[in-house]
């Protein structure tokens, strides 16, 4: 077997080159040559071993002898291309057989070389092959990133609290600091994480989200660290974990407060050393990623009651971005609503152009416990059930229509005024009926009407 780098941790390297040749001397010299060129190398003496190596590790180029006992180079090329069509294959032939070389090229080989090999020519060829594969991989990652960002990515907000958040996002994006994003459910924590990543030097590598709350504790370890083949029942293949997937990029840990104590220890270790082992594995894997995490929980309280490790809390809480709830930035609601209307109208091909003033009034008055997510859902629903071109109050969920009166203020008096007003409206101003519904006598109701100027 050829020289391998089993002892050194895997990291982003110059590229991996796999040499497949049945002649030991050829394999050995090629492996040494490419090691000197700075590549991670591996070798196989036949097709079976080559397929195994390909399954074990990622490679950027394969050098393949066209003549081998058993499965020949052409057949192996077909097998490899079935699994990974983008992996460049360079054929080596001792006979300068134009026919087989042409056949290999027709079937998608990157190029071919003839024995005796000119090492400089081969180096040049391999460099080109590795670069092409790397570009292809980067292209794939970028496409995935574009797909991820296809969701509403524009951060809309002109209010003071949002301007401060955006300023912080801008300044923290360029650094490699760990960021803790806090905010109620639906305030756009993941969107902020994506924005930080998209503006960081890691933007050409993926941002890998892990929703810690939705993955059962027993599966979280394998989800994050990956596992080796046979690590546990059902682990039929080696699987990369999210940490490895985030190599070079950003790991986004959503709902980080839900992670259990045993897993917190493992996570802390990885954050400190940037090294881990896959479940069922012994080889350390080195990764380079930035951590952004998010929570809507009170981590300080969790630290106090012992359900969240203090050392992990300090490790994560380097820079904190607190997202204001939508009710605290009502001035952003019209801007957001119009932005969402435009987006959904376009996506759903519905000819909506704007909001009826009464509908906008409801949107601005509502308390939005589900924040921007709830607003987005309300606008999307209006696109479905409403009648273009304008969104009317009845196109919005019932709860918004009901809140119009009661959201004038939070004091008991505000609530009472709004409620009495609503009942009077519903009874068409019939005081007797309204008093009956409210469970008070008519005189008391008259006093309230006078007190709150409801008739004026």
């Amino acid at each position, binding site marked *: 077997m050829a020289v391998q780098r089993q002892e050194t941790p895997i990291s982003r390297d110059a590229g991996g080159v796999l040499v497949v040749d049945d002649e030991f001397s050829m394999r050995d010299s090629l492996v040494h040559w490419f090691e000197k060129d700075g590549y991670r190398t591996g070798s196989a003496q036949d097709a079976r071993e080559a397929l195994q190596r390909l399954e074990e590790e990622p490679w950027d180029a394969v050098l393949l002898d066209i003549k081998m006992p058993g499965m020949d180079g052409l057949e192996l090329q077909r097998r490899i291309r079935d699994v990974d069509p983008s992996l460049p294959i360079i054929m080596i032939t001792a006979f300068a057989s134009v026919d087989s070389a042409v056949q290999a090229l027709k079937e998608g080989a990157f190029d071919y070389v003839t024995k005796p090999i000119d090492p400089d020519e081969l180096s040049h060829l391999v460099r080109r092959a590795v670069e092409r594969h790397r570009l292809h991989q980067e292209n794939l990652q970028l496409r995935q990133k574009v797909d991820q960002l296809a969701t509403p990515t524009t951060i809309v907000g002109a209010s003071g609290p949002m301007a401060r958040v955006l300023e912080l996002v801008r300044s923290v994006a360029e650094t490699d600091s760990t960021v803790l994003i806090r905010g109620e459910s*639906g305030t756009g924590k993941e969107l902020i994480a994506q924005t930080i990543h998209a503006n960081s030097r890691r933007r050409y590598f993926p941002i890998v989200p892990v929703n810690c709350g939705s993955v059962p504790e027993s599966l979280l370890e394998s989800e994050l660290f990956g596992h080796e083949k046979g690590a546990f029942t059902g682990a039929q293949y080696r699987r990369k974990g999210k940490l490895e997937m985030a190599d070079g990029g950003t790991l986004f840990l959503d709902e980080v407060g839900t992670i259990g104590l045993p897993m917190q220890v493992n996570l802390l270790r990885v954050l400190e050393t940037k090294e881990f082992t896959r479940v069922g594995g012994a080889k350390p894997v080195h990764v380079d990623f930035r951590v952004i995490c998010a929570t809507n929980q009170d981590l300080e309280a969790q630290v106090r009651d012992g359900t969240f490790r203090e050392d992990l809390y300090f490790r994560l809480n380097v820079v904190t971005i607190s997202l204001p709830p939508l009710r605290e930035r009502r001035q952003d609601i019209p801007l957001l609503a119009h932005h969402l209307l435009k987006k959904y109208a376009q996506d759903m091909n519905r000819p909506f152009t704007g909001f009826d003033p009464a509908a906008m009034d409801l949107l601005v008055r509502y308390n939005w*416990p*589900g924040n921007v*997510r*709830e607003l987005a*859902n309300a606008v*999307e*629903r209006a696109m*479905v*059930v409403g009648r273009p071109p304008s969104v009317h*109050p*009845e*196109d*919005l*969920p*019932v709860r918004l*229509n*009901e809140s119009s009166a009661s959201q004038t203020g939070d004091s008991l008096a505000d609530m009472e005024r709004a*409620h009495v007003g*609503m*009942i009077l409206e*519903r*009874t*068409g101003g*019939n005081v007797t*009926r*309204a008093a*009956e*519904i409210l469970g008070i006598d008519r005189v008391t109701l008259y006093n309230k009407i006078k007190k709150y100027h409801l008739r004026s």
Partner: protein
Amino acid sequence: MAAGIDIVPIYFTDRDETLRRLGGVLELDFRAGVRLRRPWFDPEGAFDPSRGQYRATSLLQMLLEDSQEDQAERVLGVTSVDLFAPVLTYVFGEAQLNGRAAVVSCHRLRAEAYGLPPDPALLFQRLHKEAVHELGHTYGLLHCPDVRCVMRASSYAEEIELKGERFCEACRALLAQRNVIPRALRSR
């Protein structure tokens, strides 16, 4: 009301008899002709695999599109699957306020959903109330503070039992303004 109400079963796994009975009581409640008809759409598009539930708004959309050529004034989808609205864990139903379509789910109305033995009478009573409630929204009614009124909001199945199956006087007055003349939908 002339044009009537269409009841459209969507993944409805209970007995057809339940729907016929529901049609019968709604016919009396709203003094409207009630017709039972099959849907011409695939409801699977409303399924959200991450939640294992069906999106109520999507079913409303399907019902509306499905009923474009239809003469019925109201379309009520009745389903046995679990419904949700994105910011809520589940909903018993959803309606187009002052519109045409409503959908109601039996999923959480069943006693079995709470570990109790099946109770067809209770299920029908709850289904009836929720159907009237959602149809009430289509006639422009909002939730009512009157604890006896069928338009009272219910977050839990038990709350449905507390309210009546009829509209209160205030809601009835609003319906009268809209020329909906429900059968003696008097408060009890």
